């Protein structure tokens, strides 16, 4: 579990995060949502230690990231997997090389063992057969899946995903969402996903944190979003006509949201 307590972060005198607190639970897909410029990427970067907040605490199962020594942070980072918005695959390495990279850096596995583990991860993300290709030779969706395979290669306790669906078509987005959700439950990982994608919010949002203008405005799960009284959240989530119609339909027909027969899928 990751706990964030009263995180404040400013840039050039402009406060981007105002005392944000949140809990990211183990074995659940935790989503950070909010408009562009709301501070969710700053929160995500603070969580992984790429940015240093001015105040507050970030507790990884009780260990405060902000009071750790460089060596302790180094050790903690071996427990973290991250999926970047642009995948951030190493151009000079093949797909297999990318997935093997963390194994070669942090384990004493033989080359054969590393290869087997990497192939297992690639198989897990349905990418068997692409191991000898270079990142430039595969599609955006495949690159995301390689990045997921690389992120889970070391069996991380914490998985961070920055806009995992950006630039992907809806079908591929759903595949990536399902993959992240499955991996989270399968390996009991604390997964934190930073997203704009409302399909993700309503599809895999088990613990949703809504950030607005640097403040944490709302916490809940996907079923609570339809009936939220928070105007900013409602405006944000149901901004598109399609989602507005879904919301109206749910309200008008009292459709259950628990994945029951006839209801909207949870």
């Amino acid at each position, binding site marked *: 579990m990751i706990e964030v307590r009263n995180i404040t972060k400013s840039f050039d005198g402009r406060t981007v995060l105002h005392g944000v607190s949140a809990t990211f639970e183990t074995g659940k897909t935790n989503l950070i949502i909010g408009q562009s410029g709301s501070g969710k990427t700053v929160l995500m970067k603070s969580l992984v230690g790429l940015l240093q907040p001015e105040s507050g605490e970030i507790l990884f199962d009780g260990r405060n990231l902000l009071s750790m020594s460089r060596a302790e942070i180094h050790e903690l*980072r*071996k427990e973290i997997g991250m999926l970047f918005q642009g995948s951030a695959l190493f151009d000079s390495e093949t797909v297999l090389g990318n997935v093997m*990279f963390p194994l070669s850096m*942090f384990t004493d596995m033989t080359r054969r063992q590393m290869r087997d583990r990497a192939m297992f991860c690639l198989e897990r993300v349905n990418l068997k057969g692409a191991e000898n290709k270079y990142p430039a030779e595969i599609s955006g969706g495949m690159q995301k899946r390689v990045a997921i395979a690389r992120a889970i290669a070391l069996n991380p306790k914490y998985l961070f995903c920055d806009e995992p669906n950006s630039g992907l078509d809806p079908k591929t987005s759903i595949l990536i969402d399902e993959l992240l959700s499955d991996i989270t439950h399968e390996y009991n990982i604390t997964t934190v996903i930073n997203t704009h994608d409302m399909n993700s919010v309503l599809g895999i949002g088990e613990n949703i944190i809504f950030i607005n203008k640097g403040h944490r405005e709302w916490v809940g799960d996907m079923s609570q979003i339809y009936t939220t009284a928070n105007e900013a959240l409602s405006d944000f989530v149901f901004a598109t006509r399609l989602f507005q119609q879904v919301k109206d339909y749910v309200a008008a027909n009292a459709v259950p949201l628990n994945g029951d027969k006839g209801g909207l899928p949870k």
Partner: protein
Amino acid sequence: MIISNSIATFGRFCMFMRRVFSIPDRMSIFLRRTLVEVSKLGVDSIPLVIVISMFIGAVCTIQMQLNVTSPIMPAYAVGLATRDIVLLEFSNSILCLILAGKVGSNIASEIGTMRVTEQIDALEIMGVNSANHLVLPKILGFVCFMPVLSIMCIGTAFVGGYLVALFTDLIPVSRYVYGLQAMFIEWYVWYGLIKSLIFAFIITSVASFFGYYVKGGALEVGRSSTNAVVASSIFILLFDVILTKLLLQ
């Protein structure tokens, strides 16, 4: 303002170098990457070095013949002057200025692209010292291979001059060859090699620094690449003066 900025940048460069010169996480990976960089930065520069050295050696010989011709000057002075120019300046300073363009821009754009595509962030989050992992193999690989390029440059430049002597009637071949050997000072070779090692370090470290701290997108990567070449060229010229003063006087 300019002075305080320069001091701040120098401080940042020193801190960057401290991160670069730390013990690699995995020695086997570090050695493998160093060999790759030797090939990419060093071996791949050989064709450029050969072509440029050949022509410069030929031009030097022609220029010397045209400008040094005098009844009181012996014919072998052309070979001697060509040799000293190549040993003292061309095989190190001029060669490194040229390589600053090729190698420096290559390094700055490669590392800069890794920065803007978040590959460096990915390394950091994995717990890898990205500066050490990416930059040290480049510095070590190029510095180690630089003497080879420098010696290759010397040899090829002499061949260029030799071909001029052979195919023109500007200077007899025997006089040119005699000039290359006359009054040879061995220290000039060491002086050139020492300078080339330091210039190789300047090219790789300055270019890596500019690439590593890129912010923005493709435009900034291009700008950092240009700035890296300009800055390393200026530092090469500055250190050329300092090293000449220190090593030749």
